[in-house]
Every structure is written in C-alpha cells, then in structure tokens.
C-alpha cells in the first residue's frame, strides 16, 4: 500500500464525487451517504461516460450517459449490464481521504 493524502472528506459532496487526475487516467473518489469513501476508475466501460458525474445511491453509482449502475465496492456492473471498473483502496484518517496509489503511479516505485 502506498497512501497519498488526496483531500479533506468535506471536499467531496455527500452522495457525490470528485476526480483525481493520474498518469493512468482519472480516478473518481465517491462519498456515500454514510461518508464512506470509494475510489474507482472514472471511465464507464460502456461508452466512456464520466462516472464521477453520476448519481450516487447506496453504495452504487449510475453512469450519467446511459444509466449503467456500478457497485462502488466491487466495481461490477449491476443488473443486466455486464462490465467492470477498477477499484482502488481508500481510507479516512482524521477527516483526510487517503488513496492507495500503488497501481496509479507506475513511474514511481513505492519507497
């Protein structure tokens, strides 16, 4: 694990998301109703919709373009649709959101 302090929990709207730009594409960081935080790839596998712009409900997000629903925990598409988005570990420490960037910073070896 290679934790990086991303932002304060309050920077992410409740039931909303913000994005983190990385060398391997955008990561969407979601905050649920219970102020849990999840990070996934921002790209919908269907036609590339930005998932961070979707409606967050329970522990799922609905893609803003054609309403595919993804579990934020497993990254799996729900219901009849088939697809998978990458998920990344997060944790909250003293109100700060920490993101595990092991898979996101290929250039930098974890020290």
């Amino acid at each position: 694990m290679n934790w990086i302090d991303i932002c304060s929990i309050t920077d992410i709207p409740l039931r909303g998301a913000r994005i983190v730009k990385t060398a391997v594409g955008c990561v969407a960081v979601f905050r649920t109703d219970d102020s849990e935080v999840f990070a996934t790839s921002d790209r919908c596998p269907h036609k590339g919709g930005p998932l961070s712009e979707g409606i967050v409900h329970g522990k799922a997000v609905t893609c803003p373009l054609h309403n595919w629903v993804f579990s934020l925990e497993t990254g799996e598409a729900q219901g009849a649709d088939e697809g998978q988005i990458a998920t990344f570990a997060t944790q909250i420490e003293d109100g700060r959101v920490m993101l595990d960037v092991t898979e996101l910073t290929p250039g930098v070896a974890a020290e």
Partner: protein
Amino acid sequence: MTQKLIIIGAGMAAGRALEHLFETAPDAYDVTLFNAEPHGTYNRIMLSPVLSGDKTFDEIVTHTAEWYEEQGVTCHFGEKVVKIDRAAQTVTSDNGGVLAYDKLIIATGSNPFIVPLPGHDLDGVIAYRDLEDTNTMIALGDKPDAKAVVIGGGLLGLEAAAGLALRGVDVTVVHIMGHLMERQLDEAAGYLLRKALVDKGITVKCSANSKEILGENGKVKALLLDDGTELPCDLLVMAVGIRPSVALAAEAGLATGRGIHVDDQMVTSDANILSLGECVEHNGDIFGLVAPIYDQAKVIAKTLAGEEAAFVNKDVATKLKVTGCDLFSAGDFAEAQGREDIVYRDPAQGVYKRLVIEDNRIVGAVMYGDTADGNWFFGLIKDKEDISEMRDTLIFGPAFQGGSPLDPMAAVAALPADAEICGCNGVCKGQIEDAIGNGATTLDDIKTTTKASASCGTCTGLVEQVLAATLGNDFVVPAAKSVCGCTDLTHEDVRRLIKSKELKSQPAVWQELGWSTQNGCHVCRPAINYYLLADWPLEYQDDAQSRFVNERNHANIQKDGTYSVVPRMWGGITTPDELRAIANAADKFDVPTVKVTGGQRIDLLGVKKEDLPEIWFDLNQAGLVSGHAYSKGLRTVKTCVGSDHCRFGTQDSTGLGVKLEKHLWGSWTPHKLKLGVSGCPRNCAEATCKDIGVVCVDSGYEISIAGAAGMEVKETEHLCKVTTEEEAIEVISAMTQVYRENAKYLDRIWKWVDKVGLDWIKGQVVENLEARKALVARFEISQTVYRSDPWAEHASKKAETYQPVAKLTLEAAE
C-alpha cells in the same frame, strides 16, 4: 524490597488496573497516584445521568480517596504531573514535588479537542469531559432563560444537549455534517433522531459551519456561523472529538504517534514506563471506549506482576444510547467489500432498522423507534453468528414466526381521518371512509359521492388505496406503475403525500413513505428532489447530488465528456457587445463548434469541465447569464420581430417574449418548458407547437398549450384569449405553476394534459380567478429563490469544485 510504582492519572483505566494489580500482587509495589482532577476515580460514562439529574456524583464514584488509602496508595489528587525525567527516573508535579519511581504508568486519558475558532478561550466555552464541565452545565440550568449552544452533533454533543434541555436550558446543536451522528447513523436514522430532539425543544442546525465565538467582557455571548447567523448563548459546549493526551510522554522522549506507542504487554518504548487507556496507541489503533481499556488493565496488572499476558484488540461491537431517544447503534458501518444492507421501515410507527451484512454475518445494526431487538442483534454481531438461514426474516427480530408480510399500503392506512386526499375538491380520508360505509365500493362510486379524484385525478391512487385499506380483499387495486423499485407508490401518490404529510426533506420522504432502499436510486432521487423544491420553495434546499449531471453542472454534457455552454438571449434578442463577448470566449477557450440553436441563441460546444467557471465568469462580465439549456425548467421564449418591424405584426411579440422570459427564467418544471410568441397568425415563431404558445391578434393574445415537436408532433390546444400583455403574463405564470405543482416528473405539458384534461386546467387558470391569483402568488414566492443566475453563483462560490481534487501526475513527476 517493594518497588515504587507511580501512576499518572486516576481515571477509569488506572482505577481498573490498580484493582487487578492488588488482586494479582497485593504487596509487590508501593503505589503513588497523581490525578489532575481533585477527586478519586469515577465512572465517566455516567456523567450524562448526572447532568440530566438521574444520578448524583457520589453514585458514580468507583474508587474514593479512602478506598485507595485502604489499599496503601498515596494519593495526590488535584496535583498534575508536569515532567517525567527518564534518566533520573523521577516525576515532577505542578507544586514542585519530585518523586522517584521504579515503574511508571501513564494513564492520562485524552483531551477534548477544542476547535481553534476566534474566541475559543472566552469564559463560558467548555468541553464535555469531566465533572467540572458537568457542574458548569448543571449550574446554567438554575439561571432563568439560559441559552446554550453545543457544537458537535455526535454522541457527546447530543448527550450534553439532551441533559441541558432537561435542565430547562434553551439549546441549539450546531453540526457541521448533513445529519446527526453521521458516524454511527445513516441519514434516515439521523432524520428520526433530529425529529425526536426537535420535539424535545432542542434546535438542531446541520451542515452549519461555525465561524467565530463572540464575546463581551471576556465572556461568551454568541456563536457566529459562516452564513451570518448569530446564535446567542450563555454557555458554549464543544463536543467535537478527543485527542489522546500524549504531551507529557512526548516531551519525555517516549515513542508516540497519535497516542503513546505500547507493545502487547502495555510497555512503552522505555522498559520502565507502561501506559494504558485512551492515551495509548497499540498497533495503530487508538481507543475511545472502555471495553478494550478494561482488557488493557488486566494485561498491565499481569505485566507488573511479572506474569505473561498480551493485549489483543478484540473487535468489540459497541452500543450507544442518547438520553431519552429510542435509538440503538452497534457495530461497524465502515467501508468494506461485499457488504450489504437490509433496511426496514414502518413509517406509521416511526420505525427504522438497518442491518449491515458481511459474509452472512451481521456487522452493524442501526435501529430507531423500536429497539427491543437491539440486544439480540448485538449478540449476533458479537458472536459472529451465521445468519444465512434466517436472512429473509432476520430484520423482524427473534420473535418473527411467519408473521404478516410488509403492507405496502401502510402509509395510507396510517393517515388520520382528516388527512386531505383530494386537493382539488378538499376531500379528506374520513369522508371517503364514510362514503364506503354508506355503500361505495368502486372508484366511480367515490367520485360521484364525494368528488374525490373527479378533477385533476392525481389522487386516484390514494383513493384506491383508501378503498383497499377499508374494504380489504373486496377491492382490488388496479396495477399502477410505481416511481421505481424503491417504492410501491406512484408519482401521483408521492406528490400528494409530500403535500398532505408536509414532507420537506428527502429523508422524510424515504422514511414516512417507506422507501425500501437507503437513499433512493437514480430514478426517484431527481423526481423527489423536484417535487420537494416545487412544493416547498422556501424550506427545501435543492440537492445537487440528486440531479442529473447537466443540471448539476449547469451545462450539457456531450458524448465525449465535454460540455456545451448556451447563454441566454432574452426573446432571441442580442447586441454587438454580447456577440463580441461570445466570440472572445470561443477564442479564449478553444471552443471547437459554435452553433445557432433552434431556440434562437448560440451554443458553444466542446468546453472542458475545468473551464466552465471561467467561461461563465467572462460571459457574466458582458451581462450574459445561463440559458438553462440543460434544465427541466424554462428554456427559451422564441419570438418573431412582430409589430416593431414586420408589416403584418399586430402586437409587440418580441417585447412580450422578452418580458415572459425575464419573468419565468430560472424556474424548475417537471420537464423542459419552451414558449413561443408570434406577432400574427402567420406564426413565424412556431408558437403552436410549443409547451405554451402565444399568437398575437389585433384584439389581443391567443394563448394555447400542450404542443409538441419532438418524437411526437402535436399542435397546441386553445386555452384562452386575453386582451392585455399583463393578463397574458399572469395566465402563463399560473399555467406554469399549476404544471409545476401537479404534473409527474418528466411529463411535458402535453402529456400531462392528456391525463388531467384541458377542462380541469382551464378551471384553475382561466375560470377561477382566485385560484389563478393564488397560483401566480405561489409562483412568485418560488421565483424569489430561483430567479437568479446559477453561473454567477457557481463561478464565484463553487469554481473549486469543477477542478480535480488532486493531480497525481504532477506529484509523480517530482
């Protein structure tokens, strides 16, 4: 020879540790105990009953000075240790005494966190941690008309608030998050808790940011919030969290992180110094509850007695209760893969239950209103019992034996007899029940006898449910389409219930109408958000997170993830300056496509999200505002040039269009709203396929509604003819409002008129002048909130949120 043991802090941890030590090795140590508080050990957890008057301080003392002396302990109560000298093995107290130790225990607990707001050091600003704080609060209760503010809507803050309220103090709780106890409760339970506290006379302010504590003569006077609200108070209690008290250990050079580092034997980085309680950090964990601390006390006693022992931080579930609220929360709600929820609501009884399941085990439970099964669930959590066998009925508790299934009509059955069912004809539930008592058995019977559902018809579903609830099996409800999978109610039912039950927040809707999901889905959330803001424009706060991307970002998302930006051109009129500003913006932001739209304005396509606030700012400078080209709300008023320039023109159609647009803009409607105003029946503005169209004639204005020019094409139907511009604006405002208040979300006017009939609408906005005036008045009230430019607001206040929160590409490069 007996060794000298010094203990710093006589709190719950130290008291318990000494008890065990005297059992295990009664004569091994010569013990000296320091405590900053001027008394022996008491049960800190019971301070709330002392505050509320249920208990006295004496009742909660666990170890008195006498008890310690009987055990041969030398007590220095009211004396604080200020220094540890590890080389000399001595401690120094605040009255200058220096004492040597062989072994030292640090049990300093934690310090309440005081937010460093300006004024935090004023007299009358306290925490809620010890007896002194409690006594200060009790004393306030003796003062007439006393006011207190509690910052922090967590367990401690609410305990303080509940206790103060019981003592007759006027209390306001200020909480930074959107709902109370957000770490233990979800929004729905938070909503119920808030309701209960409000019923007790406590004022609760959520999502409230404190800015400054105001004082007078060195004493607290009020709390100032960052929205400018001033909350006067005689006492301000801060209950925002605790921090392990590590300063003493850190200054002595012991290893510390968030707490004092200890190993499994509770020994710190110095072999002669041990530590336990809230001040320690063990394997990265810190502690805030007594159960693990009591385990530490056992281990530390053994370590001191030279016996083998190791502390293991067991995953203990914790229970909590807020004084006088029927609330139960246990276990863990934190994020983890593969967790699932089981939610149960009984709106009629005000009951809410939620279980969090992982690997067929319950890991968390929240209960409100009916907590009788709390301990049973708590047991299942603690014992990690496999619940797969009883999963389907689990939430009904241990007593459930094939009991009655959930009744989807509970919400209707629970309505009181005087609840209004049919708004148009003012028919309440009791009248419908009477009609049924007199022999009515069908919807038509009810229509003819009571007139309920005989007008706009939105209450049809409710009337049917009253029939069903009253007649039981004799009445079969025709299948109606529910809003979505979260509820069995139809849009019409939900709208009616939001009004009749005065539901003013989404959690209120979810709870009172028995939603089966925790917080809805992408289908119902935008609809409910719209209904709430249309019905309660002043009370309800629009929720951006319940809006589709376009309405949240005030621009239309394109298939490549860029946005289109369309500034408003009132009635299709523009100026050279505006055009220059648009051209400049297009240049500056590299806009790939500039297009003239069908609504007589200009669309800048292909703007990056990050650039939106800046392009809006630039356009604002030229007086251009949002065209709401993205909203379920007023889009455009298309006009022709009319009598100003056209030889056929009968009236100033452009002028009327501009006036209408300025009057209606910013309003949210169930679906898009497009208008057209043509200067004569040649109809160059295509007004007769709009949602609302005006065709000018010599003698006035012909207003028609319900046109369509999309997948469906339909000519408008005639609503009425008026003679003045003012009247035209009035009828159109009333028309817009009646649509806003009654239509189903995502029904265009034509679709909705198909359901309710043109006659009913004419009755509301043409024939009944009083109703029309009332509609216009309600529209105006709503417009006081919404007739403003969202671009200006976002560009100045929310620009930040359009940027990524972090750019790891940069950090990686460094």
